[in-house]
C-alpha cells in the first residue's frame, strides 16, 4: 500500500512535473495576492487566452514557445490599452473583446497549419508530458519572477494601495505597474504548461482570495497564498498520476476545496465566525 503511494516519486517525469507545478503554483499565487485586490482578476484569464496564438505561432516558426506567448501577451495588453483609450467602452467589454479575438485567431492558426502539438495541449496543459527544454524555460520564468517579487513586494503593495503616496516617496509607479504586468504575462505563459489556458485564471485568483479570508496583513496574505499555491500544485500533480492526466483539473479542484474551507471556517472573515458573533450578540442582549 505505502509502496504504491510512493510510486510517483520513482519516476523522473513525475518528480519533474510535481516540482515544476509547485514552482509555477507559488509564483502565480504571489501574483494573485495583488490581482484579486485590484479587481483585475479577469485580466489573468484574458492574458492566458490571448497568448494562445503566440504559442501556436512559435510552434509553427520553431522558436521557444515563451517568446511567442510573451509577444502575444504584450500585444494583448497594448491593444486593450489602445481600445480603452479611444472608446468609451467599459474595461470588461474591452477585455472580453480583445481576448476572444486573439483566442479565435489562435484556434484558426492551429487548424490551418497542422502542428505536432495539438491546441489541446495549450488549452488544457499537460505537465506530465513536459519536455526538458520546456522545464528549463518554465523554471527560469518562475524563478526570476519569484525573485523580482520577493525584492519588490512592498513597493508594489504601496503602489496598489495608495498610488499618490507611492509617488510622493519618489517611486516610479508607471514602471512598477509595467513590471507587474510583464511578470503576469510571463507567469501566465509558465502556467499554460501546467494547467492550460482555461484554468490559469484559477491559479492567479483562488490562492490570493483564500488567503484574503484568513488575514488582514498583506505580508502574511502573500505567505499563505504562496503556500496554498505551491502545495496544491505539488499534490495536484501527484494525485493526477493515479487518476491519469488532467493535472490542471486536480490542482484547481484542490484550491477550490481550500477556498471553501476558509470561506466557512476562517477565524475572522468566515461565514461561521460571523454567525457565531451574531449569536453571541443576540445572547448578550437576551
Amino acid at each position, binding site marked *: 500500500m505505502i509502496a504504491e503511494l510512493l510510486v510517483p516519486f520513482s519516476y523522473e517525469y513525475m518528480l519533474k512535473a510535481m516540482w515544476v507545478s509547485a514552482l509555477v503554483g507559488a509564483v502565480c499565487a504571489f501574483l494573485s495576492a495583488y490581482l484579486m485586490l485590484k479587481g483585475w482578476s479577469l485580466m489573468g484569464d484574458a492574458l492566458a487566452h490571448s497568448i494562445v496564438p503566440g504559442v501556436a505561432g512559435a510552434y509553427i516558426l520553431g522558436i521557444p514557445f515563451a517568446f511567442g506567448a510573451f509577444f502575444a501577451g504584450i500585444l494583448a495588453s497594448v491593444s486593450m490599452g489602445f481600445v480603452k483609450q479611444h472608446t468609451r467602452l467599459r474595461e470588461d467589454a474591452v477585455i472580453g473583446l480583445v481576448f476572444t479575438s486573439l483566442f479565435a485567431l489562435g484556434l484558426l492558426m492551429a487548424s490551418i497549419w497542422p502542428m505536432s502539438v495539438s491546441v489541446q495541449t495549450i488549452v488544457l496543459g499537460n505537465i506530465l508530458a513536459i519536455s526538458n527544454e520546456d522545464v528549463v524555460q518554465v523554471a527560469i520564468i518562475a524563478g526570476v519572477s519569484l525573485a523580482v517579487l520577493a525584492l519588490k513586494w512592498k513597493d508594489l503593495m504601496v503602489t*496598489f494601495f495608495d*498610488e499618490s503616496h507611492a509617488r510622493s516617496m519618489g517611486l516610479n509607479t508607471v514602471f512598477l505597474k509595467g513590471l507587474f504586468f510583464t511578470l503576469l504575462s510571463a507567469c501566465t505563459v509558465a502556467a499554460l504548461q501546467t494547467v492550460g489556458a482555461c484554468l490559469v485564471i484559477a491559479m492567479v485568483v483562488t490562492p490570493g482570495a483564500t488567503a484574503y479570508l484568513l488575514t488582514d496583513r*498583506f505580508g502574511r496574505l502573500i505567505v499563505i497564498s504562496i503556500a496554498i499555491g505551491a502545495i496544491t500544485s505539488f499534490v495536484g500533480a501527484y494525485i493526477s498520476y493515479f487518476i491519469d492526466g488532467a493535472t490542471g483539473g486536480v490542482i484547481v479542484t484542490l484550491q477550490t476545496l481550500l477556498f471553501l474551507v476558509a470561506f466557512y471556517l476562517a477565524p475572522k472573515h468566515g461565514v461561521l465566525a460571523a454567525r457565531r458573533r451574531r449569536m453571541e450578540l443576540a445572547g448578550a442582549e437576551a
Partner: protein
Amino acid sequence: MLTQPTRVELNPASALVAGISVHGLTVTYNNGFTAVRDATFDLEPGTICALVGVNGSGKSTIFKAIMGFVRPSAGEVRLCGRPVEEALKRNIVAYVPQSEDVDWNFPVLVEDVVMMGRYGHMNFLRMPSRADRYKIDEALERVGMSAYRSRQIGELSGGQKKRVFLARSLAQEGRIILLDEPFTGVDVKTEAAIIGLLRELRAAGHLMLVSTHNLGSVPDFCDEVVLINRTVLAAGPTAEVFTQVNLERAFGGVLRNFSMGGTALHDDADSRRLTVLTDDERPLVLYGDQPGVRDASNARPPAK
C-alpha cells in the same frame, strides 16, 4: 489628546529651504480641458496656506501638479528649489489624500499604513529598523490613534482614517505636507485636533498646503491663502487676501451670503455689519471688514 507640543526633528536630507514655488503653471488634461492656466504663487517654510476655490476650480489639479502626477503644459513647479521628481526622491513631500483615492478593503493594518510613510527612508528591501518602529509609535501617539493600531484600515471611521494618514505624513517627515480636504466629514473635535497638529508642524518649520471648503476655519489657522478659479485670483497673507470682495470673486454666485447691520443687528452706535459667507461647510463670519478670528493662538511664530 492630540496636542502635546513635541519637537519634530529636522530631517537632514531636506534641511534646506522647504518652499513651494509655482510659476506660470498651466495644466491641460488629455481631453483638451485646461483646468489651470498661468498659476503663480510662492510659499515659504513655516507656513500654513489654504487653497480655496469652488468645486472644479483646480485645487486637486494643483496638488497633482505638485506631486508630478500631471505634467504641466507650461510653467513649472519647484520644491525646495528642486524639480518635482528630484524633490520626491528626497522624501520632501508628504501627501494626505482625499479619502476616495484609497482602497479601504486592502489587507493592511493601521500601523502598516503608517509604516509606509517610512519606506522612503529605508533601503530598497524596505526593512524597518528600530528607529522606524519608534517613529510610527510616536506618530500614532501624536494623532491619538495608538489604540487602533491593529485594526484593518477599512474598519475605522472617516475622521479616524484621516488621522491615520496624517500620522503617515508625520512618519514620513516631509518638509512639505499637502492635505486635500482634510476636514470634510470630520467632527469639530477632530478638526481642532488636526489644526493643533498642523500648528505644531508649522512651529517646527514645515510648510502645509491645505485645500478646504471650510471657509470659517481658514482665518483661524492659515497664515496665507491662495484663492483659485482655474487660475490664481489672489495669493498672500490671510488678512489681505481673505476678504469678502475676493471671496465673492472666487465663488461667484455659489457663495451663500447673509449680511446684517444697522438696527437689525445693533441697538447701539456700532456701525459694523455682520456678514456670513459660506459655500456649505463652516461659514466665514466677517465683522466689519475683518475675519472674526476666534482663537488668538494663531499668531505666527516670529520669523527666524
